[in-house]
């Protein structure tokens, strides 16, 4: 019902994908240990990738063929089914895990379909592995503790989406883009707002998915772990969209040999994974460049940046006595990651490669814009409080403080008392925002 509401026709495509995985799972299990198991695994992967490729990438290839060869192939008039990238990866993980013997064959089509169509995470992740919920598909427990945790997580996720992410969306996509008075400062504010929008939008959906899952007795794995506090790009990707990162690691990177191969092969593996990561996000060159951009920094870190950072940190710790100055290496590393990530999301959310280049040039003063403008001041002041709230909210500070306070005997009682009040207030504010505005669909719905 949930999926059919948004995709009344493509719901049958999703059910077809479920059926394909169900049959392939049974066949792989039946012929386990024979070459036929491998054959059925390959047909399972090919059929899933073919469906994803047809709906998501056909027009991209037509566009590029037309551009290169000057042909006039007509575009397919098809819309991208919502969430196809997520549920395709989930069904792939199921058949691969069955083949590897890491998951038992699911003999109930209803249960397998429940796993794929589990509505909390169906359209925008996290990418839940079959093995994560295998047991819970049959046996779930329901407690007030789980339900309350799920409700709290859902409400705070909804709050992150409506009260924070959507406001930054307006700043980045409406106010900035429509402003006739852009300045270098405004380009940086755009980049920050854009990065905060993407983080709060996507992590909010994961919070809501995990929360709703809990209320139904499912325990989904975390998808974000405060990525903006990272000090290397590698760490950033261990904290950002963790379910996708681990999926590519386990099903692409490691099968290709991972890093236990020659330098050339490892280089190839890294590029392949990050090319696919970018391409998974969207059928456009900016996504591919976005993925390869991260590959570049990961390679640089592996080759020399990470060791340089380590040496710098060790030097400061050894030679410097003043605590504040000893934090300088951490600050430099953190600044490096933030700048790399801000630029990456400008590429990610750009409407064309030309525009992306123009924005990045303008951020560094090469766009012919003045350094500051009165509108920059206006929007900075307009969003000042929300910026502070969002920046603090993207770190573990709030969680840490809340946990410490709740552990204190007297204060803990007050925190316990305030929690239901906070949930009610956030829920009220979310409804107030929903009835007043047309809400912005989740960014990752398009992937």
């Amino acid at each position, binding site marked *: 019902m949930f999926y059919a509401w948004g995709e*009344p026709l493509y719901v049958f495509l999703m059910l077809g994908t479920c059926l394909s995985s169900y049959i392939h799972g049974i066949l792989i299990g039946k012929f386990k240990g024979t070459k036929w198991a491998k054959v059925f695994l390959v047909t399972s992967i090919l059929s899933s990738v073919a469906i994803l490729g047809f709906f998501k990438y056909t027009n991209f290839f037509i566009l590029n063929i037309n551009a290169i060869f000057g042909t006039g192939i007509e575009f397919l008039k098809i819309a991208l089914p919502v969430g196809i990238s997520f549920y395709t990866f989930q069904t792939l993980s199921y058949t691969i895990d069955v083949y590897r013997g890491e998951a038992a064959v699911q003999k109930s089509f209803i249960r397998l379909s429940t796993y794929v169509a589990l509505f909390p995470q169906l359209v925008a992740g996290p990418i839940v592995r079959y093995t994560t919920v295998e047991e819970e598909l049959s046996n779930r427990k329901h407690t007030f503790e789980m339900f309350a945790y799920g409700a709290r997580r859902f409400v705070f996720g909804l709050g992150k989406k409506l009260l924070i992410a959507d406001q930054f969306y307006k700043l980045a996509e409406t106010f900035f883009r429509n402003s006739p008075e852009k300045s270098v400062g405004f380009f940086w504010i755009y980049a920050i707002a854009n990065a905060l929008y993407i983080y709060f939008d996507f992590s909010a959906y994961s919070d809501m998915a995990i929360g709703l899952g809990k209320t139904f007795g499912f325990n989904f794995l975390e998808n974000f772990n405060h990525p903006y506090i990272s000090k290397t790009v590698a760490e950033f990707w261990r904290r950002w969209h963790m379910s996708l990162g681990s999926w590519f690691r386990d099903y692409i990177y490691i099968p290709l040999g991972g890093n236990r191969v020659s330098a050339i092969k490892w280089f190839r593996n890294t590029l392949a994974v990050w090319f696919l990561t970018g391409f998974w996000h969207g059928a456009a060159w900016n996504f591919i460049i976005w993925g390869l951009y991260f590959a570049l920094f990961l390679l640089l870190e592996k080759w020399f940046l990470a060791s340089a950072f380590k040496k710098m940190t060790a030097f400061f710790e050894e030679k410097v006595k003043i605590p504040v100055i000893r934090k300088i290496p951490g600050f430099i590393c953190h600044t490096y990651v933030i700048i790399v990530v801000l630029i990456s999301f400008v590429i990610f959310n750009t409407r064309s490669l030309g525009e992306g280049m123009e924005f990045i040039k303008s951020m560094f003063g090469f766009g012919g814009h003045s350094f500051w403008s009165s509108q920059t001041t206006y929007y900075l002041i307009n969003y000042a409080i929300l910026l502070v709230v969002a920046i603090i909210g993207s770190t573990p500070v709030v969680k840490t403080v809340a946990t410490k306070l709740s552990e204190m005997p007297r204060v803990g009682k007050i925190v316990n008392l305030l929690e239901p009040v906070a949930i009610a207030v956030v829920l009220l504010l979310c409804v107030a925002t929903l*009835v007043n505005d047309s809400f912005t669909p989740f960014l990752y719905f398009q992937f």
Partner: protein
Amino acid sequence: MKTQLKNKIVTVIFAGFILISFLLCIVKPVTEYSSSERRNLAKFPKLTWQTILSKDFQDDFTKYASDQFPFRDELRTVKALFQTSILGFLESNGLAVKDGYIAKIENFTNDKSIENAINKFSEIFNKHFKDTDAKVFLSIIPDKGYFMSEDGFYPSLDYEKIEADMIAGLEGMEYIDLFDVLELEDFYKTDTHWAQDKILNVVETIANSLGSKDRISLDFQHNKLYPFYGVYHGQAALPLPGEELNYLTSDILNDCTVYDYLSGKTTPIYRTELFAESEQSKDGYNVFMGGASALPLLRIDNPNATTDKELIIFRDSFGSSIAPLLAEGYSSVYLVDIRYGNFDMMKEFYGLEITDQDVLFLYSSIILNSSFSFK
């Protein structure tokens, strides 16, 4: 509070909120019109297989559910207060808020629109007034954004450029500068328009330029209507109090009549009966000769005029409240709104004769910046 009890309370709040909202949505009667937002609310969409498959039903249902949600107005106020009071936003629903004054944020000066206005005014001037004895004047009414951006950083139009372009493009007209005559307090706090009782200095400035000052006494009685909620009141959704809407009368104005060429009806200058209707749906500003209504051509007749002189005002809704105050100096004042009718056709159809009238092009900066509706 024990954790177990807290978990039960959270569960009850969450589940209760969803259940009660659902029940309220079902039992609440459908509201057809939102007087605060001045728009019709979405109705339950047509349910057919076709509308479901095309997703029209789902999209329209989302709008319907949002529009018909119980306590919608109160919730909009909660959201506006949260954003302005807690988050410190300088605007609410796209409207700038400063010291209780609300204005639409306009930060894009549309050069093409200004050029269009210049071309349209030039066309009318050259065709109808250039070779006559009529004296033609141009005046621009700065909107509230001009004053709100004066001492701060609120985004605003490039008023200097608009003024310079208009003056340069309309050389045959004598320019009357109102930028220094007006101030923010001359406007309603919650409406786009100026308040009639605050613009006597504007009337004086214009009358001086037109040469009709000696025929105008500027001696009026103040009449109050309350509460007046301007067009931005409901849009901003902030809990702001109603304002006084003052209209100015005199013995001469009381004898004046307004003829609407479109309907063929004659009415008094002030239509206070429209103010009562404003609570339901209409705009209280309509008291002033229809205010912002679509009225292409009106004529004020002054039976006590001491002159045969006539005035033609090419105007937007701001003209509705200032024209009566200029009427004492003329036998007739024509109000032409070229957003709703072509002047060539009006002149031809209604048999208007151009002789030695005073002619005033009086437009707000907001309308000049979105002039493509000029016919």
